[in-house]
């Protein structure tokens, strides 16, 4: 019952503090929109130059989303170096040779997919050999970018808001005041989880819905599973935030945890391939909540996997939450042993 009092108090405070509410609800949407505008060159129509390719092949090509030009070899070479065209397709003794400009992974992919589709339309015996002017096919694709960012931003904002508000509870003396009442330490932690839980639930639903329906983030799995993972990530961030706030003396010191605790998680969340990270540091990945959250989100959203495939991730996140809750209760002993 005392937890309920704390929870409803937090909810009231939240409703009064419109700016913080906006930070939690609007900021993730804003940033995700920016990122999607920056990285989602979906409407970009690549330009492809064809050199020495028979006319009857060119006529069969689908030109809806692609500009096609026929050029002399020399002019095409200059054009691709200048960035005027994105690829050259040339006929090299019965093999179609593709030279990609290569610096933008999403363009590369778009062109290759387009070419494959054209092949299906019936040019038998034509093999594709793909070459890159810059970069190569090993360049990271941003396809799995969005799902990870979705989890990250929720994690980030919940961490900041919960950490700072628990810190303020301590610096304004209200924590000490709370501890002079017959409340149990566990009831304080639970109160925080329920009070913040409501807002993280709203936040998670809004951000997930917006990402999928407005930003058209790649999504083949279940909305509810995505929501579950986001909420678990938010609760992990909440309990971690309140825990670490015990080790900060003011808001600035709370902000200082961002480069120490939040940023490293980005590196191990799958934005960068973990296989390519040096062995002496990659062992750290399994200790990071975002590693599991991001893995689960990619599995659901990109691969359409179900509950069975992400059970381990869910268990890991629940484990983190439980661990942080217990540590929170223990750390509160610093202020009252009872």
């Amino acid at each position, binding site marked *: *019952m005392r937890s309920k009092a704390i929870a409803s108090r937090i909810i009231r405070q939240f409703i009064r503090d419109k700016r913080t509410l906006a930070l939690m609800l609007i900021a993730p949407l804003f940033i995700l929109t920016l990122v999607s505008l920056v990285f989602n060159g979906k409407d970009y129509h690549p330009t492809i130059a064809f050199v020495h390719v028979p006319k009857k092949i060119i006529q069969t090509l689908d030109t809806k989303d692609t500009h096609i030009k026929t050029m002399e070899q020399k002019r095409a070479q200059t054009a691709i170096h200048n960035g005027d065209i994105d690829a050259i397709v040339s006929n090299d003794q019965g093999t179609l040779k593709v030279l990609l400009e290569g610096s933008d992974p999403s363009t590369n992919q778009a062109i290759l997919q387009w070419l494959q589709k054209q092949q299906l339309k019936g040019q038998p015996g034509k093999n594709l050999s793909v070459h890159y002017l810059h970069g190569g096919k090993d360049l990271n694709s941003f396809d799995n970018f969005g799902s990870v960012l979705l989890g990250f931003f929720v994690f980030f904002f919940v961490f900041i808001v919960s950490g700072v508000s628990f810190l303020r509870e301590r610096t304004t*003396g209200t924590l000490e*005041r709370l501890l*002079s*009442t*017959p409340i149990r330490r566990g009831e304080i932690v639970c109160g925080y989880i329920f009070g913040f839980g409501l807002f993280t639930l709203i936040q998670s639903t809004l951000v997930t819905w917006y990402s999928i329906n407005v930003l058209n983030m790649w999504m083949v799995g279940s909305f509810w599973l995505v929501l579950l993972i986001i909420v678990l990530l938010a609760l992990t961030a909440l309990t971690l935030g309140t825990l670490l706030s015990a080790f900060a003396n003011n808001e600035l010191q709370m902000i200082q945890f961002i480069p120490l605790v939040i940023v490293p998680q980005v590196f191990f969340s799958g934005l960068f391939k973990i296989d390519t990270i040096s062995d002496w540091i990659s062992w750290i990945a399994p200790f990071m909540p975002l590693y599991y959250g991001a893995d689960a989100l990619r599995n659901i959203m990109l691969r359409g996997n179900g509950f069975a495939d992400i059970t381990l991730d869910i268990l890991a996140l629940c484990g983190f939450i439980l661990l942080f809750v217990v540590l929170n209760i223990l750390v509160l002993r610093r202020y009252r042993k*009872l």
Partner: protein
Amino acid sequence: MTHQNVIRMNHVSKSYGKKRIVEDICLSIERPEILGLLGPSGAGKTTLVKMIAGIEEVTDGEICLLGERMPRLKLMEQIGYMAQSDALYGELTAKENIYFFAKLYGLRGKTMKGQCEKALELVGLLDDQNKIIDTFSGGMKRRLSLAIALVHHPRILILDEPTVGIDPVLRNQIWEQLHELKNEGITIIVTTHVMDEAERCDRLGMIRNGRLLALDTPEGLKQDTRSQTIEEAFLFYGGGAHAQ
């Protein structure tokens, strides 16, 4: 009602690391009274009252409240504590603040509303109960803190410098109120360094460097030290902040 000591402190000491904050204090309160703790800042008054309130643990010795040893969660329901700083939620209204704490003490429904209203009325804040705390003056916050400390009808009221920043008229009212509460059977421990307040306590404890140097009625202290005023008595015990 069985008669038992309200508060009994047996050789209570408190240290942080190697630093001794409270040193070997023995004190007992047998029936409801107003006990003042007088001493310069840094004397250990706040640490002492926090131990009585159950927020801090004693390093040595023991504190018993109403016959039971502190700290105990159950006993904390019997204590009203008002900290030196106003521990209020600035975004909330006075009413929301007092309701919140009342709920933590287990009050519900009509009882809660009634007691909150009575406590707010006592400190003259009933008309301001729907104002946001951030718009409150320092004195209003102090009064609300006092109301919150009273709201659950505790048997022991611990007030850490309750009248700082409160104007003399209101201070007078609050002290009259404290005496009324005492007459209702509530034991009040109040820390202060305001001399005219000290005069209004039933008994005064002089504290310096964590030690209880003297404990008597204001009159008794004056006689013992052959002083005219409490201030002189206070200085006699080396209580002046610049005495050394």
